């Protein structure tokens, strides 16, 4: 009945998630001097010093000025560290229906991808995927959480910390 064993891949994802959470926690605890602890060109460097995600308004896939600035920074970094390929993950908040949110997440990922390409990142390095409303990072019941979930996250596929 089960044709595929993806446990290894799942474990890898979880490891990446924990690494990112750890980094995020450090960033909050030690805002100063963090960059000096981070080795340039690593996944940690990308997440902490560049920012791996951009956010969207409700039911929108238009990049705001802050998002464009983050993505411009990502593009600059990716152009410098050309060994990386990336996956842009699109997400939606929980206040929509499942199928539409899958497509909406894809639209957001495409918007981020297109912006990176416009900044010189080769399209062949970029894969996109949408998780719709299936992978929230914030789980409270108000707009402060929902706004964190409406996001496109750039994930380095072959990152080392």
């Amino acid at each position: 009945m089960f044709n595929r064993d993806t446990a290894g891949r799942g474990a890898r994802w979880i490891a990446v998630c924990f690494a990112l959470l750890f980094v995020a926690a450090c960033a909050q605890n030690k805002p100063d001097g963090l960059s000096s602890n981070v080795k340039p060109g690593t996944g940690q460097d990308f997440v902490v010093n560049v920012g791996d995600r951009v956010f969207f308004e409700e039911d929108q896939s238009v990049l705001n000025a802050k998002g464009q600035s983050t993505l411009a920074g990502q593009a600059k970094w990716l152009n410098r560290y050309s060994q990386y390929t990336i996956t842009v993950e699109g997400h939606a908040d929980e206040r929509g229906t499942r199928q539409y949110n899958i497509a909406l997440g894809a639209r957001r990922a495409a918007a981020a991808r297109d912006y990176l390409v416009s900044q010189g990142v080769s399209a062949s390095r970029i894969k996109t995927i949408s998780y719709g409303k299936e992978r929230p990072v914030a789980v409270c019941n108000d707009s402060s959480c929902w706004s964190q979930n409406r996001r496109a996250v750039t994930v380095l596929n072959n990152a080392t910390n």
Partner: protein
Amino acid sequence: MHGILKTLSNPAGLRACGLAVLVSIAAVFAPPPASALVEIDITQGNIEPLPIALPAFSAEGGDGKLASEMTGVIASDLKRSGLFNPLDPASFIQKNMSVNSTPRFGDWRQISAQALVTGTVTKQPDGRLRAEFRLWDVFAQEQMLGQQFYTTPENWRRLAHIIADAIYERLTGEKGYFDTRIVFVDETGTKDKRVKRLAIMDQDGANVRYLTRGDDLVLTPRFSPTSQEITYMSYGGADPSVYLLNIETGQREIVGNFPGMTFAPRFSPDGQNVVMSLQQGGNANIFKMDLRSRRTTRLTNTAAIDTSPSFSPDSRQIVFESDRGGTQQLYVMNANGGEARRISFGPGRYSTPVWSPRGDLIAFTKQHQGRFMIGVMKPDGKGERILTEGYHNEGPAWSPNGRVLVFFRDTPGATGGPQVWTVDLTGYNEQRVDTPAFASDPSWSPLIN
């Protein structure tokens, strides 16, 4: 699951002319016909469920517990339909009913029963279970139905559902839906790390069985109308894609070879095609794949999100949702694509349309002012009715007789999660289906034959 033999046993050959059953689209205020002694009008708000007496089936010296449990399943099915009121056995005057003798109708009239079911369950010398029941019209003092069945003992719940279907059908004139199953997504783990597994259960929540292990994210399973297959979306491959799964053999295959993510699958009424969305960049368009020839056909071509396609039961049209006009709305097009006409015009956004197997209605999710509703409208968009409304109701699916919708209701916050509910077309009868954990994306099987 097969192998339940059915024989009719109506020795007197009586016609139940005394118990008229009204199944019509009568106007709300139309008085009932004077001749009707008992009527179940399942199209209207159900103010008075039919009082029905279900004394525990006799076991004739056999397994009394089993006989009693079977009677309980029948009573529970009928009660959950909202159309029947199984009376408290403590009120019964006539005790120790035999299926072979005529009831003392006066005793049952006295406790206001309008219908009475008597039955017996015995073990045959060959190990099989034999069940026999009779449905009586208490006022006309006539047998309306008599049937007997043979099956293996482990099929006892199914047998109870089949008897409940026979009673439902005889008294409402509609096909029953109790001998059916629901496929759904079982959800465990915290909200930000949900594990989702495909699962299947009887329509009353019994006999849950898991179809996937939870390694891959799985969504939106839909039953084939003609086979023991489901189509669903899985994140197990390179791109999230639509798959087929045979629920008896466990055999799994990807549907088509599309250049990108496919999602929102649904079978055609003949089970030979799957319609779904293909994501290309920011756009989602609807495609159809013929499962025999493997040929794919593009049905929409817009710079919009076109998704959630659902065939009309005559296979000639497809209803779907699209944001081509700015927000999610419902559209109907020819089953081969082409011009689509918008059918939803109320305030709010409309999504997840599903065509009733009867053809008369389209069910949908509607969002308006932060509320999520389940509603129905006619295929031309007229006659919209909201059946349930709240924080989050989503994803209706039809019972095979087109009288009940199953959907999921989510609750907010970190500890919130979805549960499976049913609501009938009156909107008055909401029931939660008990599941082992959180559960979403329910889809009803066709009638099991």
